[in-house]
């Protein structure tokens, strides 16, 4: 990624979180991966000033307690958090989920490939793009 800030993964499924971690390792992406299990936990993390702000957020949609869409509604209405690019990473192919996510100005919507090689390729593309793109510099 362009900066050395951590990547925040909001994902309730441990196996899926492990897969992201493994793909980043295989791709030699040096950014730390912080995992939060749902939208509520992610907001707690992001609002704690002692935590490092992430460069990007990878967001699952279907999660208990607070799902991805609800998280986006809150994060995109928050002056401090709205600048962080959010990339949806989900199994949902629902048109409604896509439209709602883009209505909330996500910076990408990626359907998780089930095949590991294809999954690594998807993460490689995400990493390439967010290395090419500048990021807002606030939030150190």
């Amino acid at each position, binding site marked *: 990624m362009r900066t050395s800030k951590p990547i925040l993964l909001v994902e309730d499924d441990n196996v899926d979180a492990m897969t992201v971690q493994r793909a980043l390792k295989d791709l030699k992406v040096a950014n730390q991966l912080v995992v939060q299990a749902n939208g509520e936990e992610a907001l707690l993390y992001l609002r704690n000033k002692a935590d490092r702000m992430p460069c990007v957020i990878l967001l699952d949609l279907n999660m208990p307690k607070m799902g991805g869409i609800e998280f986006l509604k809150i994060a*995109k209405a928050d*002056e401090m958090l*709205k*600048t*962080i*690019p959010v*990339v949806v990473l989900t199994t949902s*192919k629902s*048109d409604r989920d*896509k*439209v709602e*996510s*883009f*209505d909330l*100005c*996500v*910076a*990408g*919507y*990626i*359907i998780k490939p089930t095949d590991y090689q294809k999954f690594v390729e*998807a993460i490689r*593309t*995400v990493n*390439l*793009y967010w290395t*090419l*793109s*500048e*990021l*807002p*510099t*606030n939030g150190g």
Partner: protein
Amino acid sequence: MKMRNSKPILLVEDDSVDAMTVKRALKDLKVTNQLVRSANGEEALVYLRNDTNSSPCVILLDLNMPRMGGIEFLKIAKADDKLRKIPVIVLTTSRDDRDKVESFQLSVAGYIVKPVDYKKFTEAIRIIELYWTLSELPDTEQEHNYENIQADTAR
């Protein structure tokens, strides 16, 4: 090669030479999406609000333009329920931190500083194309497609 869907790419750019460079890079990369160009934010809004035009898959947005610059365009587009869904990628020469922060505050889906070298520029366009082929897009043209199907059936 083409973006996830066959809708046009809207380039908002006042500089003709820069617009030609984007066109050339897309051609070299064999990206088949049509490139539509508006010379400033005002023209882009007129294009986007004309229902007879096909809505773009993504918008590539320059910042420094006469009449209406990129930031002002973003303020209007992102407050418009019909336009806010379309991903906007800033493509500029500005490395100004304020421009970056303002753009991300207005929820851009990327901010790319134009490389001056043509090879590097093509590489940047290749990565943009790769990412927006991987990413899904909102299907804002559904009603449009439906109308086309209706028209076809009526024939």
